[in-house]
C-alpha cells in the first residue's frame, strides 16, 4: 500500500487543456472517489495515475516514488476497467494469473494466489470458465480478482459498475467497499454516479471542466458544498435553488415570496439553497402549489411551484395531497445554503 500524491498536474491535447493544475493528496489506505459529469477529466486523471496517459505538467508520486515517466507495469498498480477488459481466450484462472505469470512466478505460487483471490470474491466454481460463460457481475468480479492477485500498492477503478443493471450495481458497490475494508489497499475510484461516490468513498473529489471544485468527506460535501455546482451535483434529488436577494428580514425570491433566514446569515446572497428533505409541511411556511406527488412508500416526494420556480420536498410522512393543492413549506433554518453572485458559498 502507498499514498498517492498529485501535484499541480496538467494535461494538454495539442493546445487544448483538459486538466488544469490539479493537487490531490491521497493517504495510504484511503478510498478516494473522483466524481463529476462526462468530460470533466476524471478518467483522464485516473489514466495519468495508471501511466496510460502522459502527464503534460506537474508530478504524480506513488509512495515516495515520482512516477511521471514510469511505465504502467512498473507503477505497482492494478486497474479495473469499465468494460472489464478480460482476455476472452483465457479462463478465469488464466486471466487472474496472467500478471503473475509475466512476473515469472512459479505455477504453484500463481495457483495459490489465484485461489486465494477467488475465495475472497466467491469465484472458485468459475475458475475454469471463459469470460463469455459468465454473467456481467461475475466478469466484474474476475476483473477485480485480476487486480487483487497482484497485491498492488494502489487499486484504480474506472467506472467499474456502469455496465451493470441497477440491482447488481448496488450489490457490487457493497462488495467493493467490503473488499477495501478487508484489504485496506489505497483506492482511486472514478464514477459519474454521485450515489456511488457518497456511499463508498472516504473522501470525494468533485471535478468539473478539468478543475477540482471541492475535496472532502461525503457528508462534508453534502452539508457544506463550496459552490452551486457541488450543491447540485451531490445529493439526489438535487438541492433546491431559488433565485432572489436578501431583504425584508429574509430572502425575497424573484417572485416575491419571503423565505426565512437564520440570524447569522450573511448579506449579498442571490441564491437560496435548501435540500428537499429539509423542507417540512407547515401552514406558517411560504406558499407553493403542488404539481406532482411521488409516493415511494418510505417517503413522499412533492414537486411544487413557488411562483415560477420549481422545488422538490421529500417528506418522511405519508401525505394526502393532490396536484393543484396549495401548501405551506417551511425550511429548516439550520440547513439553509446561501450563495453569492459568483456562485460561491457565503
Amino acid at each position, binding site marked *: 500500500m502507498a499514498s498517492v500524491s498529485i501535484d499541480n498536474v496538467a494535461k494538454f491535447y495539442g493546445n487544448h487543456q483538459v486538466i488544469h493544475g490539479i493537487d490531490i493528496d491521497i493517504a495510504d489506505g484511503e478510498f478516494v472517489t473522483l466524481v463529476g459529469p462526462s468530460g470533466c477529466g476524471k478518467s483522464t486523471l485516473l489514466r495519468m495515475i495508471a501511466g496510460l496517459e502522459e502527464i503534460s505538467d506537474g508530478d504524480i508520486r506513488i509512495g515516495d516514488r515520482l512516477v511521471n515517466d514510469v511505465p504502467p507495469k512498473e507503477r505497482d498498480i492494478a486497474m479495473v476497467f469499465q*468494460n472489464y*477488459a478480460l482476455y476472452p481466450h483465457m479462463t478465469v484462472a488464466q486471466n487472474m494469473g496472467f*500478471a503473475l505469470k509475466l512476473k515469472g512466478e512459479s505455477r504453484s505460487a500463481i495457483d495459490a494466489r489465484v485461489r486465494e483471490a477467488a475465495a475472497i470474491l466467491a469465484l472458485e466454481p468459475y475458475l475454469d470458465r*471463459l469470460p463469455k460463460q459468465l454473467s456481467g457481475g461475475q466478469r466484474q468480479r474476475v476483473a477485480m480478482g485480476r487486480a487483487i492477485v*497482484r497485491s498492488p500498492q494502489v487499486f484504480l477503478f474506472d467506472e467499474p459498475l456502469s455496465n451493470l443493471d441497477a440491482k447488481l450495481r448496488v450489490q457490487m458497490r457493497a462488495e467493493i467497499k467490503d473488499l477495501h475494508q478487508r484489504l485496506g489497499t489505497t483506492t482511486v475510484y472514478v464514477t459519474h454516479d454521485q450515489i456511488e461516490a457518497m456511499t463508498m468513498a472516504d473522501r470525494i473529489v468533485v471535478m468539473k471542466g478539468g478543475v477540482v471544485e471541492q475535496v472532502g468527506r461525503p457528508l462534508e460535501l453534502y452539508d457544506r458544498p463550496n459552490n452551486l455546482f457541488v450543491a447540485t451535483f451531490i445529493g439526489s434529488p438535487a438541492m433546491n435553488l431559488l433565485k432572489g436577494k436578501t431583504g425584508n428580514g429574509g430572502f425575497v425570491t424573484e417572485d416575491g415570496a419571503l423565505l426565512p433566514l437564520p440570524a447569522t446569515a450573511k448579506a449579498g446572497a442571490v441564491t437560496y439553497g435548501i435540500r428537499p428533505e429539509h423542507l417540512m409541511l407547515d401552514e406558517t411556511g411560504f406558499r407553493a402549489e403542488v404539481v406532482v406527488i411521488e409516493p415511494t412508500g418510505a417517503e413522499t416526494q412533492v414537486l411544487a411551484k413557488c411562483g415560477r420556480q420549481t422545488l422538490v420536498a421529500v417528506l418522511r410522512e405519508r401525505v394526502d395531497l393532490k396536484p393543484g393543492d396549495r401548501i405551506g413549506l417551511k425550511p429548516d433554518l439550520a440547513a439553509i445554503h446561501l450563495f453569492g453572485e459568483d456562485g460561491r458559498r457565503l
Partner: protein
Amino acid sequence: MSDLALSSRKPAASLNGYRIVQSISVFVIALVVISPLFMLFIASLKDDRFQILADMGSFRAFWVDNPTFNNFREVGNFAGELAFGRYLGNSLFILGSTVSLGLVINSMAGFILAWGSLPGRALILSVIIALYVIPQESIIMPLLIIVSRAGLSDTFTAQILPFVASPLYTFLFYQFFAQLPKELYEAASIDGASIFRTWWSIFMPLSLPALATVSILMGIETWNQYLWPILITQTDYARPISVAIATFFGQDSIYWDRAMAASVMMMIPILVFYLAFQRWFISSFVGSAVKG
C-alpha cells in the same frame, strides 16, 4: 379483422417473392462459379484427349461415359525432370513457408500500426495503402534484378521472401487489430506484458478470423504463382506444380487429359487448405472480451 389479415399477408407474399428471386440468383451465381470446376473434374476422368476437345462447347463436357483414373495414374508416373510429387512438394513447401512467415510479419506490422507509438504512423499507413494498388507484374522486372543480384535465382528463398510482406495483408491485420478494444492493450500493459508479449499472447489468439482470412488469400495467391517461378527458376529443382503442369502443353501437342488431371491434383491441397481455415472466417469470440 379481415382487412388486417389481408394487410399482414401482403408483406409476407412480397417477402416470399424476394426469397425466390434471391434463391434463383444464388443458384445462377453458384452454377457459373462451379461449372468450370465441374467440367475440369469430368474432363480429368476422360481417357481420350481429342474427345475432351470435341466435347467442349456442348453439354457433353459435363458428362463422362466411361470414367477412368488413368490420367491421374499417368500424371503420378510423370516422367519429367523430377517426379510429379516432387513439384507438389515444392509448392507445398513454398506455400507453408510464405504463409507462416507472412502471418508473423504482416500481423506484427499491423499490430504496431494499430497500437504502437510509431512516429509518422498515418503517413506509413497511407504509403501502405498506396503500395497496394501497384500490380505485382509492374514491379516484377526490378524485383527479378534485385533477387538475381542477391544470388537467390533458382532457389526456394526467391519464391518465398519477396511475397512475405504484403501491404494488403498488413492493412487487413491493422484494421482487425484496431477494432479490438483499447482496454485489452491497456490491461496487458498494466499486467506487465511487453509489446511483443501483448501481440503474441493477447492479440494473436483473438485474431483467428484475420489469420484465417490472410492464410486463405495468401495461400491461394502463392499456390497460383506462375509468372514469377517461370522467371526466377532455371532448373526444375525449386519449381512449383503450376509450372510443371505447363509441361503437358507441349509445342506440338497438348495433353488435355493429363493437364486436366494434374489441375485437379493441384487444386486438392489448396481446397483442403481453404476448408481447414474457412470456419474461422465468420467465427469470432472477441465479443465476450468486453460488454456492450
